[in-house]
């Protein structure tokens, strides 16, 4: 599954561990939430980055104490129709101020890229190679956004205000 990060297809440095996979001595690892919470202290001590795979039905608040220590949070789209991870992403970015890698995993298709970027994702395990290759083109599909989100893009409401003021109309 190709990984898009920073808008480019890149090699994934992280190795995904299952609940019972033996821990490699070094290297970056992505660990399921359950295992991470159970062994957090040990995992964070070893060499290499640690990321956590967080299921979409578990309260993201449980992860908050570790947000400064994990290098990546991978949220899960078990199907592209299940939008719970969008809320988790916005909470992580906007409420809990998480600044590390926020990765979309599962059924990640090009038609969801814009929504995901706006919710705060910056890394994407894309299901189809062609979609990963089309990332930049697809991500730029929209230039107008109606809602304020943590991605900081200016909303239509505020752009109108700016235009009004620059035209000297209103106030």
């Amino acid at each position, binding site marked *: 599954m190709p990984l898009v990060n920073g808008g480019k297809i890149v090699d994934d440095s992280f190795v995904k561990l299952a609940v019972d996979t033996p821990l490699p001595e070094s290297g970056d690892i992505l660990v399921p939430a359950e295992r991470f919470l159970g062994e957090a202290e040990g995992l964070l001590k070893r060499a290499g980055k640690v990321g956590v795979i967080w299921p979409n039905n578990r309260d993201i608040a449980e992860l908050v104490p570790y947000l400064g220590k994990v290098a990546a949070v991978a949220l899960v789209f078990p199907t*592209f*129709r*299940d*939008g*719970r991870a*969008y*809320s988790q992403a*916005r909470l992580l970015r*906007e*409420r809990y101020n998480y600044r590390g890698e926020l990765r979309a995993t599962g059924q990640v*298709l090009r*038609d*969801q890229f*814009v*929504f*995901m970027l*706006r*919710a705060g994702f910056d890394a994407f395990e894309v299901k189809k190679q*062609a979609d990963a290759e089309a990332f930049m083109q697809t991500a730029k*599909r*929209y*230039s*107008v*956004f*109606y*809602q*304020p*989100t943590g991605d900081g893009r200016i909303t*239509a*409401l505020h*752009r*109108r*205000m700016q235009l*009004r003021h620059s035209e000297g109309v*209103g106030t």
Partner: protein
Amino acid sequence: MYAYDEIDRTLVNERVSEFRDQVKRRLSGELTEDEFKILRLQNGVYLQLHAYMFRVAIPYGTLATNQLRALAHVARKYDRGYGHFTTRQNIQFNWIKLAELPDALADLAKVGIHAMQTSGNNMRNVTSDQWAGVAPGEIEDPRIWSELIRQHTTLHPEFSFLPRKFKIAITASDHDRAAIKIHDIGLRLIKNEKSETGFEVLVGGGLGRTPFIAKTIKHFVHGRDILSYIEAILRVYNQYGRRDNIYKARIKILVHELGIEKFSREVEDEWQHIRNSSLQIDDEVIEDIRSRFTYPAYEKLPHMPDELRQAAADPDFEAWRKNSVAPHKVQGYSIVTISLKPTGGPPGDATAEQMDALADLADRYSFGEIRVGHEQNLALPHVAKRDLPALWKALDKLGLATPNVNLITDIIACPGLDYCSLANARSIPIAQELTRRFANHELANLIGRLHINISGCINACGHHHVGHIGILGVEKNGEEVYQITIGGRADENAALGTLIGPGVKFDEVADVVEDIVEAYLALRERPEELFMDTVKRLGVEPFKERVYATR
């Protein structure tokens, strides 16, 4: 009227170009039907019984004449020459080709019309009172807030993949014409003791197989906080709404399972985190939206012009005027409802010719504006009273002057088995038969206000639960069977109807309705006692007895 600016137009065009690409990928096989399904639904495209059905949004039911002409154009060029107005302030086209859809959308985009989120598990087209801005006594024009919410919910990055569809309706009048109590979120515009504008917020209403009347979650949310409050409700729903069972995924089930107190605590907790964020709306933003709604330059006109006085001698005109013409907030003007329920016709259908002709009439008599209501009728919102006789003659020629608004033949019906792949029974032929049975205007008038609502399946697109007489078609042993309820209503006193007994066969439905009506006429205490009041006073028993005594 609300004018889209360059920013809105850009978004609509970007959406069309995205969908064109998605259709191309579907046709080339790059997208599977499963992947494409949700994308086409988000653009209003269903795969129906015979063809693709295309549902176009008419936000808060307001149309300009060039927009109505564009809908006529789509009906003519891409469909079979007609469209169907629905209970959701939408219009549907039934026979569209997938490959031509992007062109149809592009044609509509030229006049600021789109099909975004008219279906799919996202926030649907925001609906409102079709008399918004002209109804006497409303708090203020609810469309300003509807438009604010329309913008906020369009392509929302967090709520485009909800557990199920999500519908918001707004009213600003005491008399609720927007049916807010049967919506996921119902908003009633009110003023608080400081004269500040805000909303009573209701949540968890809806029909379908588990119908609920919405409950009040908060008595007053200030206008500046309405987006954050809606966002808080949606966020709780997105995280905790059920996804294991499609029939239990609507917010009404979550509200019911948690209880309104626990649900409102969850929402309150979420809201406290976000209410002071950039979601807070300042007055300037509201004023900006308000400034893009334009209102007619009304003339100073007499309350009772000579033209109207003279026309009153014609009983046909008078019958129509009494039925279809409502008071306007400006003296000398009226709101005219145009019945799309002719005798023997499918409720809500209009031909391309009728749409074009109506656009001409709206230009001449209604400052270029048309409204679409959830009862599947249209309205001209600003008709000078002196023009009523001429308008009536013109409407009559078009077959659009049936004087039956709010009467027994003003039937709400879903498309049913004739079009819909979900339906188990026919709706349209039942409606057609009933309009023939009660075609006599004197009789219909004698009966008075009586709403019949018909659905061809449990999904309740025809809102049968809230019909004064509700008719639900189901399938039993390969046969269409119809369950009859009475006592439902969708207004400010919304209630669900009560089943009167076992289902009846297709051929018996009209007879049963006649029996119910005869029973009512015999039981009412005086001619002013409406059907609903008689049902309320006596319950279903006497009606049940009358219907089943001989069956």
